[in-house]
């Protein structure tokens, strides 16, 4: 049974259709990463699920209940806002305690002064304090609990916002870029905490992120939303290795996938460099198609006389790897390769070389963007490699 189901959610802002019928189901305890270009409607979708915005159409089912008419407060979802939305007048600790106090203390017990006198509340309050402290410690904000939002750094605020959501036991977790302002180590650490919490709580989680490694490493499935529709919803490896649409392929993967336009002949065969790909049962024969290769499958050959001659334009150092930007001599298109620093060390700007594409790694797409399933038929013999 799906715990969270969206059916055909649509939303426009003043005539601009932002969401054009988004459907999605999350199983119990499933972690779904929602990715998509900036402004594509991710936050809007989360807000609709939380009940903060009304969809123009569609259904939202949480734990088997259609919630469109349920108030946000009664949907029992926890959300991390992209804008944090911390209570400016409360300290970090109080901010985190709010959702607990709301659920665990009765209205009377929460009442100032009088509430403090009621039996039982002391125990609960102590309990809440403990939970807040634990949560804060796990997100490394325990030393900030007495500060107000105005006295914290951006990343600290973000962690408080995250803690406020994570401290609860909701039916659904919604997180809108909860780690965008954290440094890499903290992010990895927080990621671990989120995954850990998620494992314990077994609650479906919708996680918006712009960090691909986050999406790919944390999620059970990744939802790619572009132009108001979900283009693909699949496990990370599948979505990376087997994108259903050129936009998905383009969106995921750093650096971006190399795409060159080429032609499919009447027999459904595409030739590019040393590569020959055959497409079966395609409606589009004798038509332009796009060939995509991820930079890590582009090999460099020091011999400048291979099938695909290219020239180095510039290299980009990223620590453990180097991005090589090249231009193909024949068609003038840019092509990018990802190599190790060792491989890159012999390169220089303007240097001529050849590139090879790893067999079985090239993908074909129709000009409309749909993926065409192709089979590598043959690979022309390659020259010996320049480097080990």
């Amino acid at each position: 049974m799906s715990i969270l189901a969206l059916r055909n959610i649509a939303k426009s802002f003043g005539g601009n259709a932002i969401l054009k019928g988004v459907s999605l189901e999350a199983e119990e305890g499933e972690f779904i990463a929602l990715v998509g270009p900036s402004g594509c409607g991710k936050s809007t979708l989360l807000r609709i699920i939380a009940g903060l915005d009304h969809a123009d159409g569609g259904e939202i089912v949480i734990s088997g209940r259609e919630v469109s008419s349920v108030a946000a407060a009664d949907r029992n979802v926890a959300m991390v806002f992209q804008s944090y939305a911390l209570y400016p007048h409360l300290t970090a600790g109080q901010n985190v305690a709010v959702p607990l106090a709301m659920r665990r203390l009765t209205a009377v017990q929460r009442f100032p002064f009088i509430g403090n006198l009621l039996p039982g509340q002391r125990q609960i309050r102590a309990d809440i304090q403990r939970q807040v402290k634990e949560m804060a410690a796990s997100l490394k904000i325990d030393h900030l609990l007495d500060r107000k939002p105005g006295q914290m750094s951006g990343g600290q605020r973000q962690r408080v916002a995250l803690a406020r959501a994570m401290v609860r036991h909701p039916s659904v977790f919604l997180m809108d870029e909860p780690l965008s302002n954290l440094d890499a180590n903290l992010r990895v650490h927080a990621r671990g905490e989120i995954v850990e919490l998620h494992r314990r709580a077994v609650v479906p989680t919708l996680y918006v992120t712009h960090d691909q490694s986050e999406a790919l490493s944390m999620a059970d499935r990744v939802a790619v939303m572009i132009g108001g529709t979900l283009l693909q919803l699949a496990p990370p490896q599948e979505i990376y290795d087997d994108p259903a649409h050129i936009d998905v392929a383009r969106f995921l993967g750093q650096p971006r996938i190399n795409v060159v336009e080429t032609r499919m002949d009447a027999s459904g065969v595409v030739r590019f460099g040393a590569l020959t790909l055959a497409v079966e049962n395609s409606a589009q024969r004798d038509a332009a198609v796009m060939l995509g290769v991820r930079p890590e499958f582009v090999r460099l050959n020091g011999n400048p006389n291979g099938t695909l001659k290219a020239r180095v334009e510039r290299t980009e150092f990223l620590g453990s790897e180097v991005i090589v930007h090249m231009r193909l001599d024949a068609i003038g298109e840019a092509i990018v390769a990802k190599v190790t620093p060792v491989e890159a060390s012999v390169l220089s700007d303007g240097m001529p070389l050849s590139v090879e594409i790893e067999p079985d790694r090239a993908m074909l797409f129709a000009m409309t963007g749909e993926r065409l399933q192709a089979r590598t038929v043959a690979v022309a013999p390659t020259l010996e490699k320049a480097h080990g």
Partner: protein
Amino acid sequence: MASIAMDMPIVAADRREARIAWLLAAPAITLLFLFILLPTLAVIVLGFTDFELGYGGFRFVGFENYAELIGDRTFRRSLWNTAVYTAIVTPVSMVLALAIALLIEAETRAKAFFRTVYFLPVASLLVAMATVWQFLFHPTIGPINTFLAEFGIAGPNWLGASGTVLYGLSIIGIWQSVGFNMVLFLAGLTAIPRELYAAAEVDGARSWLDRFRLVTWPMLGPTTLFVTTISIINSVKVFETVKTLTEGGPNKASEVLLFTIYQEGFVYLRVGYASAMTVFFLAILVVLMFLQYRVLDRKVHYA
């Protein structure tokens, strides 16, 4: 069909929100109804009668009171006087209040002192302060004219002459409302995020004026709209100073609406006629205020 089905829950959600809104507003609406609407209705009804205080009964006279109103010189005069008074007091007190609020906020020392000093007139009991003002404005032994005389200026007969009485009253009105508006502006100023000033500085808003125009003024929009509305209303409702200092005189030169209404209703005891006046006065103002609010509200930025 499908779209109707889809709309249903949204409508339901909206309805629930509306229900909560009604619930939250219910006490206010009830009280508003009891203490403002009903008595106002009573006033409207009275406006169609010849009711006089002290007599048991009354007669419905239709629009007779209104017909009389049209020819009433005093009422016209007081409309005009009220307009003049409002046209002086509202803008001047607002500009002064904003300037003082900004100056005080920019000042680091003695903030509490200045706030209190400028607020004092608001806290003052006007009936008592009026007598002080009366003395200050005294044409011969008053400190103001004595002071002016030092410079060889023959001070005017502030409250005594029909030519100056409105200005004299306006000065008192300004004195009283500056502190009021200042408090509102001070409250409004605190709600402006400091980060915006930082952005303005970095963007090269070099002078104080630039920052004011770029950040303060637009962010004060809601406050300013509020202060404008309230200032106008308060000026239009000027009464106590007129009552205690000039009684509308000399020769109706300081006759203002509320005083005229009071005079008709409570001194001449013609409650029916005074009620008609009140209704007329309310009708004009409601329309005016609503227009003003509609026009300005659109220009104001919220959140």
